């Protein structure tokens, strides 16, 4: 599998899009840091950008990658290699390239800029961790869609709908339900609903760690109230890892029976 990872990385790290992605984060982080001078505020602002952008880029870039590699994947599958080594290697290459580009854009400004407040590296590290988990989850979804839909247009449409659902529509439905049933106890319902959206989970995970109660929102407050700080953190991390495993399980199932 290492061979496949190395070739995917060599190919991807020469792609202009990977550089654009990195430069975008580099500029945003530098601008935010320069304006606020407070690393905590930068981390919170970056979180909101990461929560929207990382899933979108991972899905769309992942789909472009899979569809562009279609014929070469066929050639690799005709070599003496097990199928999952080919897909596992390509997936790892994609995730490493996207994560490297995002993480370098986030961390380099903190290393270079001298801010008024000292940088808490555990907070930046957690932000990077959230970025990595979201990259893993949505790249795995992109692989699933790329294998599921031969037709590129259907694949991209499905990817965009998934992003729109988790980033925008889900919260709308959630809020609407909370408003309708506001006379009932909704804590457990809220808890369950937040588990079903990886973007919400990622937000809760980081805000619990940063310990900013005012930004936790209803979901985060319920998390903290029911599970406490530590267990809330452990559970949201575990659920996010489950969110990586779920689409990857789908990829494995599809890859083993798909015709190329």
């Amino acid at each position, binding site marked *: 599998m290492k061979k496949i990872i190395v070739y995917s990385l060599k190919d991807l790290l020469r792609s202009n899009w990977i550089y654009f992605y990195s430069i975008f984060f580099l500029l945003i982080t530098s601008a935010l840091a320069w304006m606020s001078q407070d690393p905590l505020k930068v981390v919170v602002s970056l979180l909101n950008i990461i929560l929207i952008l990382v899933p979108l880029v991972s899905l769309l870039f992942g789909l472009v990658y899979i569809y562009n590699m279609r014929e070469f994947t066929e050639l*690799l599958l005709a*070599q003496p290699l097990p199928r999952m080594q080919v897909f596992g290697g390509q997936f790892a290459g994609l995730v490493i390239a996207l994560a490297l580009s995002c993480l370098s854009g986030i961390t380099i400004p903190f290393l270079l800029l001298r801010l008024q407040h000292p940088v808490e590296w555990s907070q930046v590290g957690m932000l990077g961790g959230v970025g990595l988990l979201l990259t893993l989850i949505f790249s795995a979804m992109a692989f699933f869609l790329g294998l599921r839909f031969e037709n590129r247009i259907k694949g991209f449409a499905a990817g965009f709908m998934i992003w729109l659902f988790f980033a925008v529509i889900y919260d709308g439905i959630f809020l609407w339900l909370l408003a309708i049933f506001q006379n009932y106890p909704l804590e457990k319902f809220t808890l369950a609903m937040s588990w079903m959206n990886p973007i919400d989970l990622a937000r809760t995970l980081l805000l619990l760690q940063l310990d900013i109660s005012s930004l936790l929102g209803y979901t985060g407050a319920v998390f903290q109230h029911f599970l406490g700080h530590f267990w809330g953190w452990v559970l949201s991390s575990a659920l996010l890892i489950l969110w990586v495993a779920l689409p990857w399980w789908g990829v494995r199932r599809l890859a083993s029976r798909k015709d*190329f």
Partner: protein
Amino acid sequence: MIQLNQLYKTYGKLKVLRAIDLELSKPGVTAILGPNGSGKSTLIKLILGLVIPSQGTITVQGQKVRESYSYRNSISYLPQIARFPENLKVKELLQVIEEIRGKSALRDHFIQYFGVESYLENRLGHLSGGTRQKINLVLTFMYDTPIRILDEPTAGLDPIALVALRNLIEAERKAEKLILLTTHIIPLVESIADDLIFLLDGTVHFHGAPAELKQSTKHSGLEEAIANMMLNAKKDYNGRMSLSLHPAPNS
């Protein structure tokens, strides 16, 4: 070398291959022919394990295709479409395959043979279709495997490369290899094929030597013999192919 037993492949309601029984045990050039959509590529991909059979078994060099992947060590495959990672250099692509299959002793020989030595440092995304097909041929021939599977090998090649490929296939045949090939170019088949498999509507309609086919259809040219066979097989074959053995009205 290759056995196919009662092989079926369906995609939803579409039956692509039906009850295929084939034994390819003798070395030589076997050409798989048939109209578009007759299942040629599917048949090749089934042998490579790229397509999974709906029913039936395939054995290559004594190993069942569904149970192992190591049998692919004895096959080199030339895919129909030569598209590679755009940002990799030609040299790096060759390295990827070498890392998977082991060092190739014939690599440099075939780089020279197909005249691509000046492209080694170029990115694959910058190459023309014909050059990519030559790289594709180098990747296929740089391993000395007993089985070669070539899916439309002549696509995009210039006349010089075409002659080089024909000579190469000829030499491979003398080296007692099994070469499985699909093509639409009948003169190529006529000059190099020892064995013909004609697929029609997902079944093996004819399997034998070109001479046998010519004899049975009483035509001296292979192209005409094949067309005649198709017309006889399906009198109502209208629509999918507009074939006529009669001379055109103005000729």
